[in-house]
């Protein structure tokens, strides 16, 4: 099957990976369309990196199958490596080299033909806004510039799909927004973007999200779908003084799963908001809190993420520790 013909950049069928007895990735089924920005979320150790390594042709799967950019991840690992871009949070730039030298270095790695080299280099410098810094040592660049340079180096060979592994760690908000503008621009040209992140505000930038936990894909949908359809519980938000004391009181109420600090307020996960709102109001009023005004809200992505993982934990025993 050729992914380019089907319109899919990534297709996975029952993709699995075992390390001895441990199932790191368990029958993953997923299709990512061309030009889609797909966010891949999950706690540490859930199987995210193992999946990405398989998609990049670095790690052979133990079961199932998949294609990336039309190539079979079991058989065409070398072809996949030529057809993807990969950028990690470490940026993999050489700090002692200048901006141009870093680009030249990656041009060599990706065997960019001599005739195209100059054009691609100029493209990266323009894209990253580094015209005035082309001869500067990379070490002196700000996080935002390094990030854009790393992205440029990762896509010098114009791959149809790029993997971004927590790409915006430690970058200031303005640079982060610029970075996402670039990502949208690339996606608009048909490049598929596969991104992992721990930050839910970043997940909001994606077209579609998949949540992996204990090796299984436990949720899949647009950010909007996840927020409106995925949670069986409801969320009540309230603001009060000493929220950490109020939390304890609220958690004693029946029908309340738990309370969490959220910004300067509390998010309370409840079975039914209609019953919980008056109960919370009464309980807190008895304890001397005034004007708390709990209200039902649309859950944030973080609420959804935590709730789905806890629901899964209730179904099974907590995940056994393992060490590699």
């Amino acid at each position: 099957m050729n992914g380019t013909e089907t319109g899919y950049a990534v297709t996975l069928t029952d993709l699995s990976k075992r390390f001895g007895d441990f199932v790191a990735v368990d029958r993953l089924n997923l299709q990512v369309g061309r030009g889609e920005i797909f966010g891949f979320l999950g706690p540490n150790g859930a199987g995210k990196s193992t999946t990405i390594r398989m998609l990049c042709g670095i790690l052979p799967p133990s079961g199932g199958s998949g294609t990336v950019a039309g190539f079979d991840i079991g058989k065409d690992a070398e072809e996949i490596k030529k057809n993807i871009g990969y950028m990690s949070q470490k940026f993999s730039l050489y700090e002692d080299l200048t901006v141009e030298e870093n680009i030249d270095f990656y041009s060599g790695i990706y065997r960019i033909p001599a005739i195209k080299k100059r054009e691609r280099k100029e493209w990266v410098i323009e894209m990253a806004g580094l015209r005035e810094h082309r001869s500067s040592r990379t070490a002196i660049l700000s996080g935002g510039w390094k990030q854009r340079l790393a992205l440029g180096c990762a896509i010098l060979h114009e791959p149809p799909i790029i993997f971004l592994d927590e790409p915006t760690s430690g970058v200031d908000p303005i640079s982060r927004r610029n970075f996402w503008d670039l990502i949208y621009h690339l996606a608009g040209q048909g490049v598929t973007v596969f991104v992992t992140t721990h930050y839910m505000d970043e997940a909001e930038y994606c077209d579609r999200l998949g949540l992996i936990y204990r090796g299984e894909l436990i949720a899949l949908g647009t950010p909007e779908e996840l927020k409106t359809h995925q949670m069986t519980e409801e969320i009540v938000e309230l603001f009060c003084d000493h929220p950490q004391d109020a939390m304890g009181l609220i958690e004693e109420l029946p029908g309340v799963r738990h309370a969490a600090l959220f910004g300067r307020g509390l998010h309370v996960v409840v079975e039914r908001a209609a019953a919980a709102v008056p109960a919370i109001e009464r309980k807190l009023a008895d304890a001397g809190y005034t004007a708390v005004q709990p209200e039902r809200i649309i859950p944030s992505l973080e609420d959804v993420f935590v709730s789905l993982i806890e629901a899964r934990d209730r179904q099974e025993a907590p995940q056994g520790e393992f060490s590699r």
Partner: protein
Amino acid sequence: MPFTSRFLPSALTMDAIRTHNLTRRFDGLTAVDRLTISVAQGELFGLVGSDGAGKTTTMRMLAGIMDPTDGEAWVLGRHSVRDSEAIKDDIGYMSQRFGLYPDLTVMENMHFYADIYGLPRRGRAEKIDRLLTFSNLTPFKNRLAGNLSGGMKQKLGLACALVHTPKVLFLDEPTNGVDPVSRRDFWRILYQLLKEGVTIFVTTAYLDEADRCNRVGLIHKGKLLACDTPVNLKQLMRGAILEIRTSDPRRTARLLRNRFSDATVGLFGDRVHLVTGDPGTGETAAVSLMSAEGIELLGIRQIEPSLEDVFVSVLSRQGGAQ
């Protein structure tokens, strides 16, 4: 130093942390530039900024690990340079690398830190037990630190920083690379510490975390741009934010950028944010633009700015990032 007597805090109204024009230069670079802040006892204070903004350097000076080039700092009334040894008894410091020994077990790491801080043998086992329970690490006490997950390493780092019962806790980007479930757990532990009266000074690059602090300082290129409660900081936002949902968000963002300036339009997945001086006019303009271009408008409403919006707004006024 002419300011010493004027700014030396009295024991009665003693701040947990106080700095005056604190400055640190490295070669040509001013990493921290005349930083003046005070943090009350029992407060949770967040210093927020990007990589290289000066957060870690500030924290190192406060912890008495690095001397300032200029200016002064006091922690619990003790001078950061003259009394740096005494300061160390009162503070816990969790650096970004946590300083854990991967080939020691959880328990051995705890004992190691107990030794470093000269914790008396008597009562030590109980103290360590309590910290392990507190951080939910008891089941893993015989596991090598190198084999812990990111979230557990972070909690062990915190437990080690607390072994000598410090009054002020410094946490340098403690949740970097940690998943949301573990992060919630971690913040819960921090609030428990606040209840016990510990002052917490935390740095982060993430604005959603900053929202959890009592007070927040925004630092950029070594300079403090603003410092206040999250609620008050939101007043610094210039203009209102409209959240626009349409059938084609990417095209919507492009059109709005052509119509308004680049800096005022942000694309967040399926929603577009437009910063506008007057929400009424902004809304009318956006609605007519959408209908002229044949894009279906699914919703438009004014939303409360996030701290990130504020940060971007304040930074833009300072001449932008980089």
